[in-house]
């Protein structure tokens, strides 16, 4: 067992056949690396990684369904990732999510070898970013998220933000409520708040963020708190600070 070193189990994700072919070819002189799967879009990537639990992932960024950063956000922190893309503008974000390396297409064998060497060094130790960091990196700097991605068993659920009614903190998770369905995502509510557009989403309570468009009316509740009643009838607690924030936004709209 110690004689024959354990193979590095690898998945290659790229929507272009030819791009996957290059990675395959460059891995050929490395018998210690075994390609256990290839796929062409973000959905497949998430499912394949969930099923095969590879050690190393070659990941394109611009892909159908989910982009590379969204895939990374969903597959968590166990895997060493090497990004390969023609776009150099994502490099900074790639290092924020502790990618092993960032290959710019087209790349040559020496550059590829370097990336592989870095991956091997990384494999021994765990140096994974917190999921919050992953989420923060999944949006472009200075922009707010346009959709949320959640893993629902082996399936991936995409929630466009205009379909998100509210979010509720539940221990280490947030529950995202959209069209009557609840999805759990491992994330803190403050982190979620910071990636949402403050013109549409308000933190009305320590544990709640609401989509402003869903708020029908406010009712007093108890001595000095309120409840927000949403268009689908849901009732959410509103703290005093939340009420002030909500009022200033609603007044701004009128």
């Amino acid at each position, binding site marked *: 067992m110690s004689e024959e070193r354990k193979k590095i189990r690898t998945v290659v994700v790229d*929507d*272009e*056949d*030819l*791009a996957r*072919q*290059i990675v395959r*070819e460059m891995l050929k002189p490395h018998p210690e690396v075994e390609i256990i799967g290839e796929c*062409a*879009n973000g*959905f*497949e990537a998430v499912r394949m990684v969930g099923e095969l639990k590879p050690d190393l992932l070659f990941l394109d960024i*611009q892909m*159908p*369904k989910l982009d590379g950063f969204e895939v990374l956000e969903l597959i968590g922190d166990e895997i060493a990732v090497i990004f390969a893309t*023609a*776009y150099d503008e994502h490099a900074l974000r790639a290092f924020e999510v502790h990618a092993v390396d960032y290959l*710019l*297409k*087209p790349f040559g064998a020496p550059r590829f070898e370097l990336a592989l060497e870095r991956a091997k060094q990384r494999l021994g130790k765990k140096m994974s970013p917190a999921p919050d960091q992953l989420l923060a990196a999944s949006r*472009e700097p200075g*922009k707010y998220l*346009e*959709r949320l991605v959640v893993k629902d068993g082996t399936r991936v659920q*995409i929630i*466009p933000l205009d379909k998100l009614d509210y979010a509720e903190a539940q221990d280490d998770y947030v529950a995202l409520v959209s069209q009557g369905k609840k999805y759990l995502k491992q994330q803190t509510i403050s982190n979620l708040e910071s990636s949402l557009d403050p013109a549409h989403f308000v933190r009305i309570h320590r544990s709640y963020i609401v989509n402003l468009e869903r708020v029908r009316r406010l009712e007093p509740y108890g001595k000095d708190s309120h409840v927000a009643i949403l268009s689908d009838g849901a009732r959410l607690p509103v703290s005093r600070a939340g009420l002030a924030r909500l009022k200033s936004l609603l007044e701004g709209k009128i």
Partner: protein
Amino acid sequence: MHPILANVRQLLLYLLAWLPLSGILLYLLISFGGVEWTRALIFIVPLAMVFAFVCLSAWYSCRATPLASSGFWRLAATHLLGAVSASLLWLLIARGLSLAMASISPFARFDQQIARELPVLFASGVLLYLLSVALHYVLMATDIAHQAEKREVEARVLARDFELKALKTQVNPHFIFNSLNSISALTSSDPAKAREMCILLADFLRKTLGLGEKAYIPLAEELELVHAFLSVEKIRFQRRLTLEEKTDPGALRVLVPPLLLQPLVENAIAHGVANLTEGGWIRLEIRKSESENVSIMIENNFDPDTPRRRGQGIGLRNVRQRLDTSYGSRARFDVRANGDRFLVALGLPAEKMA
């Protein structure tokens, strides 16, 4: 250069205007000075022509004292001084001419006859000179207005050229990098195909480089560019990309601004097939109607669930703007998304033909 002397036509017009003026001088000389009319005519015509040229000197003093920036007293002093000196010079010439004429027998004692009329001539000279001052001010004003207009037109043309140039030179670098990556992959698996793609890419790049200088190209040439672009993308996306094209041969000779369709096709790929796992299609249709219009439709399917990426819309805005600068309201540009279909429709006048 003097505005009247610079142009023969204007000089002739100016001298023509002096004919009625010399008529008035003639009348003064005949009815008040009692000079016989043939003598008066022979005397006044050359004298008036000479003074016509003397009065042109008003331009220099007008230029030195612009109406807008000179005070009333300065204007009055300058031009009265000019009028008096011009008129005195004229008297001197008149005196000389009358003396010269008097030396010939038919004009005997003509000089004495004229000497009595010198005050009248002086007054007329002052008035005529001041009239010329007014004329020169008018000329200067129209000249300034004309130049301002010309500058404005030049500035507009310059701005438009600049804008067109800025809009044109936009080959997407990602397209080049992705193509080079495909070539890199093919070099070992299919060298012949790699070479083919190299040539197609070079062909496309050479075509776009050459277009920068031109304002219009035949639609056929733009289509060649689109085909070169699509052949490269076809190798990159392989079976994922399906193309369908229908072109009315009558439209091929119509002149269009360069790089009008290529950005739209590039857009169709970036937001269509690039986001579709199962592959995407692009349909290009070009028709020339009876009413001398060309209509171009580019349609593609796309994934409605993929959020719009940064940069989407720049290509469309760019083309819309260029249609606008080239054709104004005679061009049409519509963008429609319907379900999973995206349609860009342009209409432009077939006014220029290759």
